[in-house]
């Protein structure tokens, strides 16, 4: 029996090492479970798209390693990527932000909001292609792995800091091991059970490589909700450049500029939104409101009436805008 266990046991220890909580004594037990489950090692393989245009190997520099304490892989992983992004922080300091005591772990949303509350753009993504492209571009990524089995999960956060496609390896800061190479196949087994969920924590100057308009805008909105309005203006501005046809990007930018009292800039954003979508009621309303605040009451009134004529779910708001303007005119 024993010889059968050994290779399996070795394989399992490769999935992420000292896990969130327990030492190596657990691995023979896992091997027994794996042995009796039978199917765990038979999931299909992975493939890498050659058109990604990424180098065969890459390593992100400047990612510190923090060995995790019991149950604290979430705070440890986030502390590593935040520190890399220019927010020096220790795992202990992040525990109150991300940890959920009764769950004895950190929810994905805890990491997301935790990153935002430290002024970083939290951008979730899925899949190996995105992961490799981000790492190749020099960004570390937090990944959610299930180191156990589907029906016997052991959830874990690690930080991907490199890969080597020739050696078929992913390099992780994980648990208590820094720069731990893990076989790509094993990594994919554990990551697939975590829905291939990854998270970037970026300074607003950086855009995710795998960014998609709506997901990016929502990430920036989250940052704005965390109180980093000026950073949100920067990031919405980048979105407006990246996706020049996006009405939503212009509107979000306009609202954030308005929140910072940058009225002329906000006016310009809403005007651009209206050029892109001439029948956009919310853009007319917000433009009317700001023009009203700036004292350009005639233009504001005309714009508010235009908004009302478009109808739609916000019509009460449009009417209120017009009332406000008319009151100012008296």
């Amino acid at each position: 029996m024993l010889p059968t266990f050994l290779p399996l046991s070795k394989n399992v220890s490769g999935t992420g090492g000292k896990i969130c909580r327990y030492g190596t004594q657990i691995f023979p037990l896992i091997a027994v479970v794996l042995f009796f489950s039978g199917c765990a090692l038979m999931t299909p393989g992975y493939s890498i798209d050659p058109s990604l245009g990424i180098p065969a190997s890459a390593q992100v520099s400047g990612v510190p390693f923090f060995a995790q304490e019991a149950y604290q892989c979430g705070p440890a992983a986030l502390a590593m990527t935040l520190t890399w992004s220019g927010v020096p922080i220790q795992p202990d300091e992040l525990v109150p932000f991300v940890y959920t005591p009764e769950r004895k772990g950190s929810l994905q949303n805890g990491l997301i909001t935790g990153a935002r509350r430290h002024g970083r753009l939290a951008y979730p993504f899925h899949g190996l292609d995105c992961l490799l492209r981000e790492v190749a571009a020099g960004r570390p990524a937090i990944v959610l792995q299930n180191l156990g089995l589907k029906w016997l999960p052991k959830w874990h956060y690690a930080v991907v800091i490199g890969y080597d496609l020739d050696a078929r390896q992913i390099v992780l800061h994980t648990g208590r091991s820094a720069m731990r190479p893990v076989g790509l196949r094993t990594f994919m087994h554990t990551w697939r059970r975590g829905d291939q969920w990854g998270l970037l924590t970026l300074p607003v100057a950086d855009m995710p490589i795998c960014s998609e308009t709506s997901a990016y805008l929502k990430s920036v909105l989250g940052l704005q909700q965390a109180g980093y309005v000026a950073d949100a203006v920067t990031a919405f501005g980048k979105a407006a450049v990246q996706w020049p046809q996006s009405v939503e990007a212009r509107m979000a930018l306009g609202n954030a500029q308005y929140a910072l009292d940058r009225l002329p800039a906000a006016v310009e954003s809403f005007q651009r939104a209206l050029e892109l979508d001439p029948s956009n009621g919310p853009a007319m309303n917000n433009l009317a409101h700001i023009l009203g605040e700036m004292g350009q009451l005639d233009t504001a009134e005309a714009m508010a009436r235009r908004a009302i004529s478009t109808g739609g779910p916000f019509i009460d708001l449009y009417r209120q805008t017009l009332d406000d303007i008319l009151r100012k005119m008296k």
Partner: protein
Amino acid sequence: MRRSRNLQRLVASLVAVSFCFFSIVVAPVQAAMVTTPDIFQVQDNGLAREKVRLFLQRQDVGNYLQAMGVDKQEAQARVDTMTNEEVRMLVNKIDQMPAGGDGLGFVLAVFIVVFVVLVITDIIGVTDVFTFIKKR
């Protein structure tokens, strides 16, 4: 019918009042601006109802976090920083969301499995771990 409409109105106004205590930093409350979350929202006729629902969902997620040992202020801060979409994805299934770091359940389960395996192998007489099991 009319009664239920009145009730809806009451609930809506109660919620509207409680919105004032809810700190979303997107736009000043008094400004008649269409906010960014609303712009991102699907623009259907049920917007008012959707807003009420979202508000309640935010409360649900906040209450869950509190029940899971996060203190009230911190739970509120976390929920405030989530986008509407994130709240919608979380609500109803937050129990099943993975929490990275959980070890105890896993280890218990491993021990139970090993125990069951050994009981079975004891019963069929391959092993002799537990004296309370009659061997064949």
